[in-house]
């Protein structure tokens, strides 16, 4: 469904070129859930933004259902079937939760359907549907609304950047259930995460290191290696 071919993104820093992404290539099949993990600054979020079209590639190609989307705008990629949940959700003065959810839905929404998405992420729809997306919402509430909005897109491919960030312990299991439910319905997901519980739902895991893909494989193979890397990092004091 999604194919990245030698995707690179580089910037100029103090007169020198620096790669944020370097020759990243992998494929995602329909119905697959891929977890991307790795150190801070390894290029994970940039990779997501490149797939969504928020950051342009410096070189390489991106194909979605065999269509070359490398030069497409963000909205065209969204219309084609890619949804994206921000790591840090955006606040809007005046816009309400309902406005965002109905905009996200492709078809004319019924209130019941909109409410279902909020319930999926553990929010009582009645309490939230008319809330403003401003400073009156906590970071965790906003994050869950962001995830609900992404599910509401009903997109072929969902991108989630650290969905667990800011989610309290009580809501965490609900989040895992929401992902599992989406998986059971045949959804395709790419999720950036550091959480072992979330990694547990992966079909495959991609490990990023210093702008490149350092490991990729089935979750059962990669997960133990990721765990041992993290143990080493802890011993070295990196984590």
């Amino acid at each position, binding site marked *: 469904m999604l194919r990245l071919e030698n995707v690179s993104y580089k910037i100029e820093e103090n007169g020198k070129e620096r790669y944020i992404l370097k020759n990243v290539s992998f494929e995602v099949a329909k119905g697959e859930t891929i977890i991307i993990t790795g150190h801070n600054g390894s290029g994970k979020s940039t990779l997501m933004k490149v797939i969504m079209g928020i950051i342009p590639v410096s070189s390489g190609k991106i194909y979605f259902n065999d269509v070359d989307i490398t030069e497409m705008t963000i909205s065209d990629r969204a219309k084609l079937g890619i949804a994206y949940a921000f790591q840090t959700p955006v606040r809007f003065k*005046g816009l309400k939760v309902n406005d965002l959810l109905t*905009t996200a839905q492709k078809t004319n929404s019924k209130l019941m359907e909109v409410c279902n998405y909020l319930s999926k992420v553990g929010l009582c729809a009645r309490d939230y549907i008319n809330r403003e997306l401003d400073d009156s919402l906590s970071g965790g509430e906003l994050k869950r609304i962001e995830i609900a909005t992404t599910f509401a897109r009903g997109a072929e491919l969902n991108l989630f950047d650290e969905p667990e960030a800011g989610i309290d312990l009580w809501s965490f299991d609900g989040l895992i259930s929401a992902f599992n439910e989406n998986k059971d319905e045949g959804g395709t997901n790419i999720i950036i995460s550091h959480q072992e519980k979330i990694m547990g739902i992966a079909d495959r895991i991609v490990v990023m290191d210093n702008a490149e893909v350092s490991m990729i494989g089935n979750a059962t193979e990669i997960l133990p290696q990721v765990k041992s890397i993290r143990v080493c990092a802890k011993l070295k004091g990196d984590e």
Partner: protein
Amino acid sequence: MGTIEKDLLLAVSDLHQIPSGAFSIRENGKGVQVNSTENIQIIPKGEGNGIDIYIKENTKNESVHIPVIISKSGIEELVYNDFYIGKNSDVLIVAGCGIHNTGDSKSSHDGIHRFHLEEGAKVRYVEKHIGVGSGAEKVMNPVTEIEMGERSELTMETTQLGGVSYSERETFATLEKQAKLVIKEKILTSENQVAKSKFRVELVGKDSSADVVSRSVARDESYQSFFSSVVGRAECFGHVECDAIIMDKAKISATPEILAEDVDSKLVHEAVVGKIAGEQLIKLMTLGLCEKEAEELIIKGFLS
């Protein structure tokens, strides 16, 4: 009343037809219909340049509609409306002015509204201004003077969402003990329109409070200025906020002034002017909107 007039009436006062309660409709420089009720009396001034509105004490859940419509080019008027709101009443007052101008001459409406709120009176005052038609200037200069008695409350919602070439709003309020004033202003200007707002609130009584919030969007080459002055003369609370989105080649000026004349007065002023945040546009574009649609939704929400 023709289609243009009916549309203006709907736009400024949400009225599809003549309201059932107390009302006064002014059309093209003249009062055309007036209706009083048992508790709300509307008396046209002798010179034909306004009305006096008397609301009996303890009047609850009643409304007054006083829309002004100008559909002829070249009409310029100065109107005085005086509201006397009785003790412990709780009413809704809907005012507003719609100017339709397709002619060559300037049309203008200068409305001076004076509110006298007696002890414990509670008022929600809604005022909408709208200009339509591609003719000469459409000008509105509303002046609102508010005297608030003890424990009285006034919420003023004023909206000017486009089409008005020039407006200069002045609002003055004096608050007695425990009086509470809330003002919510919403303004959208485009092309080369000019909108100026000036607020002066004097918190005279102990435990009086005022909250003035202005949200505005200036597009194209329009100009907006916001001046606010809050004076605290007792133990009181005053908050003024000006939050504006600037676009294209527009200009916005915000001037805060707070003057504390009592050691127990708490006065706060906030003013923010900035363009639409890039991340807001990106978020909505990831939902499938194009940049223009995203911009419109953000503005609609901001001014809702």
